[in-house]
């Protein structure tokens, strides 16, 4: 797909595609006159184009080529980064929006093709990877009617059941399940926790952190080995700006790579090179890609502001998101931004060699990162909290000291006397992290 930026290096970008010499068979083109624009798909030059990619007039595709172009980017991201290999069980996080619908579709198609190969293959050497879908029900945090949410869940069930064979397990999990006790207790605790955060942006971000923890929990409890997010170029561009604005410049490079193995279950982003605009277009073109609209309301605070800012920039120059992600891509990733080494002999050795060659060399000096217990971002060594600040005993970890500066400001309570109560409201996973982070400091004291 041609991209307006002549220096855009995103995979699949056809730089400055020239089409001036195309014959113009029909009158429509003749009427368009001076503009020698072709009236054919730029890729197959056979069908009539029905949509435009990011490149505007230079990238008019017919429906199939448009889809194949996006699928090609997806496939390349998966292969290049060894995201999904035969023994894997992949959990697709599904929000109902266009990006997650497309990633679910593409993962399904990849699985379907693998299944066909398996069936056709006599020796059955390559097992097909498994796929599950997780939808997190956040209705307890906003005011949608239960009718609305039930309808949405129904739609999602239908979508997933239609994506068989191979069949996929669907998990519909309420966000409050992150706490060991769910049901009414969970709802109450979640409400209390969110109310304890005064900053609007902090509240939104805390919810995002809880969401990823819940996905981890579902994946881990059900034997999944990968979590697939539908994060597209646009979302990542927004994250780059908002992380910069929140003072998270150090950890930024950890969040925007194809693979994030900080977590127990590695998280992968195969749509990283796909702009939201194109994903939206695909969904509107293809009737089978039904979106489930769950209007949580627009983001407010900093996240909303960044979103509108990027939108304005994008209008001014359609390849701006691309440039932002590419620039941020030049920042050094962390040692955990690669899939864990594959030792499984079921994985073809070609794939293993490929992964070894293209994933990053681990940088020894960075392997001793500690992480913020709330957002799991790697902490810069100089930010190691001074143990003198800590007024927590060994039983109660000093949450403030072990958190990153952004969480300290926007999530944790300002008043130190409220810290202990806040700690009691957090899910267990965060508390455990805070404990481990702190023990390092106490050992220094001895």
């Amino acid at each position, binding site marked *: 797909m041609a991209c307006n930026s002549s*220096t855009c290096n995103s995979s699949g970008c056809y730089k*400055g595609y020239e089409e001036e010499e195309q014959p113009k068979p029909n009158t429509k083109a003749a009427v368009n006159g001076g503009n020698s624009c072709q009236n054919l798909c730029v890729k197959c030059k056979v069908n009539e184009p029905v949509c435009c990619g990011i490149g505007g007039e230079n990238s008019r595709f017919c429906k199939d080529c448009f889809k194949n172009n996006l699928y090609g980017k997806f496939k390349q991201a998966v292969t290049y980064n060894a995201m999904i290999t035969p023994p894997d069980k992949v959990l697709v996080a599904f929000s109902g929006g266009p990006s997650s619908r497309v990633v679910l579709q593409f993962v399904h198609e990849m699985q379907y093709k693998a299944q066909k190969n398996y069936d056709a293959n006599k020796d059955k050497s390559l097992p097909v990877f498994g796929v599950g879908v997780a939808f997190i029900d956040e209705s307890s945090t906003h005011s949608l009617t239960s009718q609305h949410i039930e309808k949405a869940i129904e739609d999602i069930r239908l979508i997933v059941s239609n994506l068989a064979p191979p069949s996929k397990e669907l998990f519909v999990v309420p966000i409050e399940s992150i706490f060991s006790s769910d049901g009414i207790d969970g709802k109450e605790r979640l409400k209390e926790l969110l109310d304890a955060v005064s900053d609007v*942006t902090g509240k939104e971000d805390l919810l995002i952190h809880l969401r990823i923890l819940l996905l981890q929990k579902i994946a881990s409890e059900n034997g999944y080995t990968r979590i697939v997010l539908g994060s597209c170029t646009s979302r990542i561009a927004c994250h780059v700006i908002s992380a910069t604005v929140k003072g998270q*410049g*150090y950890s930024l*490079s950890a969040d925007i790579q194809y693979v994030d193995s900080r977590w127990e279950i590695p998280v992968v982003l195969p749509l990283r090179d796909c702009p939201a605009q194109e994903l939206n277009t695909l969904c509107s073109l293809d009737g089978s890609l039904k979106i489930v609209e769950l209007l949580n309301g627009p983001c407010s605070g900093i996240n909303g502001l960044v979103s509108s800012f990027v939108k304005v920039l994008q209008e001014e120059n359609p390849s701006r998101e691309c440039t932002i992600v*590419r620039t941020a891509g030049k920042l*050094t990733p962390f040692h955990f931004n690669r899939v864990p080494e594959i030792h499984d002999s079921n994985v073809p050795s070609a794939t293993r060699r490929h992964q070894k060659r293209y994933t990053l060399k681990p940088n020894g000096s960075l392997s001793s990162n500690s992480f913020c217990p709330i957002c799991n971002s790697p902490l*810069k060594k100089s930010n190691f909290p001074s143990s003198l600040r800590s007024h927590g005993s060994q039983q109660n970890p000093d949450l403030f000291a072990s958190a990153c500066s952004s969480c300290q400001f926007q999530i944790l309570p300002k008043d130190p006397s409220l810290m202990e109560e806040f700690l009691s409201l957090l899910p267990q996973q965060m508390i455990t992290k805070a404990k481990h982070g702190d023990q390092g400091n106490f050992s220094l004291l001895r």
Partner: protein
Amino acid sequence: MEADSKPKKSGARLCCVCNQNRAALKRPKTLEQVLSSTSPSVWECFYAVFEEEIHQVILENQLFKPGERIAIGASGGKDSTVLAYVLSELNRRHNYGLDLFLLSVDEGITGYRDDSLETVKRNELQYGLPLKIVSYKDLYGWTMDEIVKMIGLKNNCTFCGVFRRQALDRGAALLKVDKVATGHNADDIAETVLLNILRGDIASFNSEFINIRFSLWLMLGCQNLNKFSTYAYFKKLDYFSTECIYSPNAYRGFAREFIKDLERIRPRAILDIIKSGEDFRISTATKMPEQGTCERCGYISSQKWCKACVLLERLNRGLPKLGIGRNQGLNSDGKKDGKRDSRTPSTESKQCGSLEF
């Protein structure tokens, strides 16, 4: 002209400096409560805090040595006026032992620069600091007005920025100064960090590349924009407050507006952006420009010709697109790459090595 003094609810809080009068001004940076009133003499607490902080930054970073000659980049605007005023005050008060000069750049923009230069000439008298003006016309043979006539309203800021940086350097050399002080404040730097992300310029984050002569932005980088307005306004400093007539087209405008909106929601975000910029992990393996000299004029340059010479060549040959966008420079025998030029889009990422200040 309005002053953004950010009054917050006063309540019963006292000014944290003098502990006598009621506080009504809250500094977003430190959240201290400082005094506010209609009576000018009562602003003393604010001035004191402001000046003291700058003094501390100078001391902690050992920015100056006694006997040094320092040129203050003076545009006539509030930032540089405040800088000139405060620096000469502190020089006197704390005996820095510095020789201070005002250095001004005349880009040749009628209706803007000619007016602001009058302000600087008055500052010369008011503060007793000798003034040197360097002009684009003398240095390069072109005024900005002439350049804009030639290339239009897009990308003219590229020319101006590159030329100005070199002009300051040339002026500094003429004055035989050791350092140049500029009045860049935190908002400017935050804008630059954002701009560099938006336009693909990761090399600028590498601090080694920033010429030591321009690292003095640190000094005022700790202060927010509004403090300058407040200080300048209430101290009744003589300054010029109109925007450059070409600035509405500058790309920086996007970043500036975003930052203004951001400041309303979370004032500390500006400093957070700067912190992020400092914390970005840039590998030494990333291809960084090497510092060499320009073959044509001897200025520092990472390429065969410095950017100013490249742009000048273009202007003189009547080919304004050279040096902008994809087609960044000349190859060794000075011929431009004509074929690639036709596909050059108008707003593109700049090559490594071009500073956005």
